[in-house]
C-alpha cells in the first residue's frame, strides 16, 4: 500500500518535472518581464551583495547580460539566493530560469539531474597558499608540510591524491569549517592552506597583510564553473550558451562597452556579425538582431566583467591564468558567430 503511494507521489512529481521541462522558458521570461536568476548566498567576486546592497560579481553580470539580450534592460533580473542543497531543485522546479551559482560542471550533474550546463565562465581549481617568508615557489616543494584542510570535502581528497601521486609526505590538519581552517593557518598551525584558488584569493584579501602570503602556481583539480538550465528547452539553452560566447568573442575582437558604438562602423566582418550590423543571428534564437550589441553595451565583454570583479585590480586580485583567452595563453575559447 505504502509502496503504491510512493509510486504515485514519484509519478506525480515526475509528471510535473516533465511538464516543467517542456515549457518554453523564453516565452515565460518575456511574459514575466524578468529573468529569475539563481545565485549564491554570497561569494565575493561571483555573486555577492555589494556596498549598494545590489548583487554584483561575474555571475550577476552574466544574469544582467541575459536580461540585456532579451529585454535590453539590465535591471530585468531577479536574483534568488540559493543554498547549495536547494539549487538543483530550484532549477528543475522552475523557481529559477537559470542557475549561475558557482556550480562545478561535472558529468553526473549534467547527465543525471535533468539540467544542462551551457558553458564555463570561470575555470577554478584547487590551489595552495603559503607564507612568502617560507620561500616556497612550487607545490612540488611541499613535501613534509602541514596542510590546513576543510574536512569531508573533495578538497581533502584532491590534496591526498596530489601528494600521493607526487610521492610526497604531508601532514593534514583538518577542521570542519572554512573560517577555522583560515584561522589555523593564520595562527601558524600549518604551513599551507588549500582550497579552490578563487576562495583562497578572497580569504587572503582579508588578512592583515595579504602580501605576506603567496598562492602557488599549481592547480590540482578541475572545477569549471558554469551556468545551467533545465533540460529539454533548446532555445533557452542556446540563448544562455551564446550570451556567454558573445561576451568572450567580444573580448577576443576587442569590442568593449566603451568602444562598442564606434565598432558598429568597423570593417571587420566578425565584429559586424557580432554586433548585428551584418546578418541576423538573433532572430533564430528568438531574440533581436542587436542582442550581442546590447550585452556588450550594458555589461561589457568577458574581460571587463572579470577585471571589475575578480581581476588583479580588485580586492580578490586573481590573475587571468587559465581564464585568459586562448590567444593569450589561457583556455577561454568561444565558437565563432557566423
Amino acid at each position, binding site marked *: 500500500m505504502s509502496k503504491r503511494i510512493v509510486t504515485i507521489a514519484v509519478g*506525480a*512529481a515526475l509528471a*510535473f*518535472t516533465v*511538464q*516543467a521541462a517542456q*515549457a518554453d522558458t523564453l516565452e515565460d521570461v518575456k511574459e514575466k518581464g524578468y529573468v529569475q536568476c539563481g545565485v549564491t*548566498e*554570497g*561569494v*565575493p567576486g561571483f555573486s*555577492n*551583495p555589494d*556596498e*549598494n*546592497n*545590489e*548583487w554584483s560579481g561575474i555571475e550577476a553580470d552574466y544574469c544582467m547580460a541575459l536580461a540585456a539580450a532579451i529585454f535590453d534592460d539590465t535591471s530585468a533580473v*531577479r*536574483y*534568488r*539566493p*540559493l*543554498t547549495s*542543497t*536547494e539549487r538543483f*531543485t*530550484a532549477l*528543475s*522546479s*522552475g*523557481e529559477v530560469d537559470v542557475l549561475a551559482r558557482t556550480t562545478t560542471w561535472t558529468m553526473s550533474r549534467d547527465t543525471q539531474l535533468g539540467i544542462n550546463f551551457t558553458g564555463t565562465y570561470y575555470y577554478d581549481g584547487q590551489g595552495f597558499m603559503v607564507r612568502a617568508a617560507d620561500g616556497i615557489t612550487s607545490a612540488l616543494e611541499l613535501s613534509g608540510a602541514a596542510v590546513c584542510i576543510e574536512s569531508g570535502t573533495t578538497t581533502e581528497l584532491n590534496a591526498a591524491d596530489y601528494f600521493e601521486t607526487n610521492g610526497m609526505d604531508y601532514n593534514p590538519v583538518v577542521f570542519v569549517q572554512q*573560517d577555522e581552517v583560515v584561522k589555523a593557518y*593564520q595562527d601558524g598551525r600549518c604551513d599551507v592552506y588549500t582550497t579552490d584558488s578563487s576562495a583562497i584569493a*578572497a580569504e587572503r*584579501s*582579508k*588578512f*592583515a*597583510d595579504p602580501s605576506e602570503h603567496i598562492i602557488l602556481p599549481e592547480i590540482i583539480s578541475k572545477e569549471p564553473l558554469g551556468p545551467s538550465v533545465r533540460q529539454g528547452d533548446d532555445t533557452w539553452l542556446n540563448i544562455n550558451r551564446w550570451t556567454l560566447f558573445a561576451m568572450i568573442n567580444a573580448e577576443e575582437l576587442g569590442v568593449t562597452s566603451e568602444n562598442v558604438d564606434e565598432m558598429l562602423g568597423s570593417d571587420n566582418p566578425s565584429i559586424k556579425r557580432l554586433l548585428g550590423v551584418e546578418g541576423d543571428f538573433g532572430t533564430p534564437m528568438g531574440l533581436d538582431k542587436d542582442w550581442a550589441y546590447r550585452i556588450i553595451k550594458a555589461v561589457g565583454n568577458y574581460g571587463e566583467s572579470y577585471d571589475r570583479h575578480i581581476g588583479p585590480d*580588485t*580586492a*580578490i586580485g586573481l590573475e587571468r591564468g587559465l581564464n585568459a583567452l586562448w590567444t593569450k595563453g589561457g583556455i577561454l575559447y568561444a565558437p565563432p558567430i557566423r
Partner: protein
Amino acid sequence: MAKMQQSYVRQEMVQDLPPPPASSGFVGWARRSLFSSISNSILTIVAALFVVWAGYHLFHFFILDAVFVAEDGSACKLKPGACWAFIWDRMDFFIYGFFPKDPYWASTDIFFVSAFMEYWRINVLFVIGLALLVPLLIPSVPGKLINALLFFIPFPILVIVLLNGGWFGLELVPTEKWGGLTVTLIIGLVGIVASLPIGIVLALGRQSKLPAIKTLCVVFIEIWRAVPLITVLFMASVMLPLFVPENMTIDKLLRALIGVALFNSAYMAEVVRGGLQALPRGQYEAASALGLNYWKSMGFIILPQALKHVIPGIVNTFIALFKDTSLVAIVGIFDLLRTVQNAAGNDLNWGAPTTSVTGYIFAAAMFWVFCFSMSRYSMFMERRLETGHKR
C-alpha cells in the same frame, strides 16, 4: 508614701546597641556572602580577578582598540579591537536588506522626496507600527479596541502595500529584495500574532469531547512538534515546489512565514493546554452552574485565568520564535543574521580579522534587545495581572 516607686521596672526601653561594625553594612554583607569561609574567600578572589581580567580585555576590545571611524577595512586590520566602522557602514544592509537604494523619485526633481530614497517606505512602517504597538501594550492608554483593530487589520495591509509596492506609482519590490532586520521583524511579528490564536484554538480542540476535532488537533500538534523547524523550512523551500504545478509558485518568504507560524502554534497549543489543566475543576463547574455556554465560559472564565497562569510560557515561546527566525537563512532568505554574516564574511572592502566577530556581536546585541524587552514586558504583565493566584 502613697505611691510605691517601682524602681525595679524600667520606664523606657534601653536603646539598641548598634550591631558590631563587622556584621553590618557593606563589610558585614561582604563577610557573610563573600568571605564566610576560607574556600569561599578563595572563590571570591578568583572570581573577582576573573571579572577584572575579562572587563579589562572587553574594554580594550570594545572601546580602546576598536575602530569607530574608517573608510574601509584597512584601518581595522591595524587594530585588534572591534571594527565598529564596518557595522556603521553596512547598517543600511542590515536593516533594509536589498531594498532599492537609488531614489525612485529622483527624476521628479522634488528634493525633499528624493532625499528619502525607497527606504522611506520601511521607515514609515516602523514609525506607524511603533505608534500602534506602544499604546496597545500600555494598559492605561484608552481605546484598546480601536487600537487593536487598527493594528491587526489595516496595518498589515499597509505593510504589504508599502513594502511590495507596484500600486499607486510605487516601485515594485519583490520579496527577494526584502532583507535584514525588516524581514526578521516581519517573520517574528507574523509568527507571534498568528501562533497565539491558532495555539489557543488547538489547545481547546485538544480538550474537545468531539473525537474528530480532538484527533485532528492532536495529530496536528504532535506532527509539527515532532519535526525540527529546519526540516519544515527545508520542505517548504525545496520539496513543495516539486509538488505544485510549474506555473504556480508560492512566494518563498510566504512559505517560510506559514511554516514558522504553524510550527510555533503547535508549541503554543501545548503551553496553553498547561494553563487549562492548571485550573481547578471547580472553575469549569462554576461556569456551567452560571448557565454560560461553551464559548462564554471559555471567554470569560477559563481562558483569562489559564492564559494568566502561563504568561511566562507564552513569552518563552515568543522569544524562542523570534530567535528561530534566523533559521530562515538556510533557505536563502536574508534575515538580520544572514545579512550580517554575509557582509562580515564576503565584503572584501571590510575584510579584516575582526570584522566577523564584530558582526556577530552586533547581531547578538540586536536580538538581545528585542528578546530582553519581551521578557521584561512579560514580567510587567505578570505583576499587573497578579490576583493572589500564585502559591
